[in-house]
């Protein structure tokens, strides 16, 4: 299958390159140079923050899109023979959309917290440096957590919504009970948002203490 072949090529070349590079360092006695700590310390907090912001909105929207795709297709398909389902089942789509909104909110909040800082001042004063680096990591963590949580939440709600639409098309009494499953699925998206907002409360970038 093309999918597995592409995946294996990607992972295979990545692993091979990584092994060769790491073994070179290990065998020449410079093993300590392979240092994750050095990487984390030397990279710019701007990179971490902006990647977090990007991932929060991107992954959430992907989740919402997958969910709406799954449930929308079922509603359209089921609505051909049972047109009564189409209005009621839009609520599944709304649950999926909420997930995208969580991601958007987080991205906007994080973007507001992104401030410039002077590198030399940060190098001179360790507290400023610590603060800015911490903010970078926090924004990355918040964005990543919100993004991934919303991604899987959106997928789950979509699949459940699709099932609900088809069950409703078959027997309209089933819809209300299936909606409860969807509500639980939507709640986990909210967890991600809570954690993300809580993390961002500690963010403080800039040159001032």
């Amino acid at each position, binding site marked *: 299958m*093309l*999918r597995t072949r*592409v*995946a294996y090529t*990607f992972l295979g070349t*990545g692993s091979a390159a990584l092994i060769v*590079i790491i073994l070179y360092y290990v065998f*020449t*006695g*410079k093993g*300590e*140079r392979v240092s994750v700590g050095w*990487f984390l310390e*030397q*990279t*710019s907090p701007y*990179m971490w923050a902006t*990647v977090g912001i990007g*991932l929060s909105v*991107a992954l959430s929207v992907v989740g919402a899109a997958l969910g709406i795709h799954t449930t929308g297709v079922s509603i359209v398909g089921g609505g*051909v*023979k049972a*047109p*009564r389902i189409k209005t009621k089942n839009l609520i599944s789509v709304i649950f999926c959309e909420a997930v995208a909104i969580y991601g958007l909110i987080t991205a906007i909040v994080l973007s507001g917290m992104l401030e410039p800082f002077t590198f030399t001042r940060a190098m001179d004063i360790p507290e400023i440096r610590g603060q800015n680096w911490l903010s970078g990591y926090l924004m990355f963590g918040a964005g990543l957590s919100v993004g991934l949580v919303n991604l899987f939440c959106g997928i789950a709600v979509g699949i459940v919504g699709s099932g609900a639409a088809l069950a409703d098309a078959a027997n309209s009494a089933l819809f209300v009970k299936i909606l409860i499953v969807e509500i639980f699925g939507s709640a986990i998206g909210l967890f991600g948002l809570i954690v993300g907002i809580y993390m961002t409360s500690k963010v403080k970038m800039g040159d001032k203490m």
Partner: protein
Amino acid sequence: MAGGRMCFDIFFCCLVVIFGGSCGAEFVPVLVWESNKPTDVQISSPALKKYSTDDFADFFINKLSAFGKKPLVVVFTEENLSVEDFSWQDLAENSVFPHLESVIATAANVDFIPSVSNPLKALQRLEKLGYQWQTVRDLETMNVPEHGGVVMVLEMENAKVDEDRPDFLRRHDCLISSVYSRLVSQADDVVAVYTGRYSSWIEPENEPVLHRVRRLLVEPAPNATVMLMNTSSILIYASDKPQVTESDIKKILTLLPDTVKRKESATYQSVRAKFSTNSTDQIILEFFFFNSTSSPGYWSLENVTYYINSPNHTNKMVLTPESGIVAPVMFSYHCSSKTVFKAVNISLTFQNFQAQPYMEKTKAFDDAYNCELFFTPPIWSGLFVTSILAFIMMWGLAMIMDIRTMDQYDDPKGKTITISVSE
């Protein structure tokens, strides 16, 4: 000398047997002569042409068919033979085959073909034409056949251990001429073939093998402007004289080698040396190498103390490096771009700086930690972000490849279906 030459030949034989067995595209010379001259059948083609087995077989069969009745064919084969053996001459300009030369002078229809591929295989085709194949092992008990139509193959033995190749060929030369004369005396028509199984000449390589040796510590030429400070446990090198810029005044420092002194304490090792400039100032530089307590196993060049003794003033300043000079113990630090030590209003610059403290023997630098990294932090950041994006791309592509359209009942030429809407 003769023994060495013989070993050389035996080694060549082995090599040639191995290669000849594997590739089989060996070209050997063939010398053919006859005792009588039936007709004028001669091979006529360019002298240096390479003959295949088939071409040689055709030529030889044509030659034999010119005889009325089948002649006696005698084949002398060596293990190794080449054109160079025939053209070899000693200092007195004698060749290795004096008897053979006299035989050929009296023979008829002499043909010398310099390169034939596998002539013995061609000669084996004579068996199909009704010739009897006879391999002669022992010369004493060799019986000359009465009638023709026999191919006698004489495989001449290998060289003796201490025999030169010319001597070896001369011995075979005597053997060939004696056997041939015996055969001629007893049989009517004799066709003789002298060839080898494999070629014996291999061109030696002309270029000598170059060994390039990389030296970490280059020996400075007598008049070079190299700075080298060598004490019992510290080694410092720079490829050019260091330069001091003090309040926009540039000075070039020349090391006075006898003034290099070492100092050691529990937390650091230091080396100090006097430098002269083109003015009357005298400058002392002291390099402090601390063994790091925060990260044990590493040494770091924390600062360089700069003392200046000029007629106007004396001064002491502490210069710190612009970028940290840290390396593990047993590794040196090297930077091919400028290494700068700075303080207020003053900077000290080295070119191609390499330093190592805490050495057991200061014969040569150990492996260097370079200031130029292969994977710098920006490169790693780029790789990190690019890998995230590439992963997303792969996932997207996989999803697109997975799309299955519902076209089982699609018929482009059929009627479009209509469904009556019922609420």
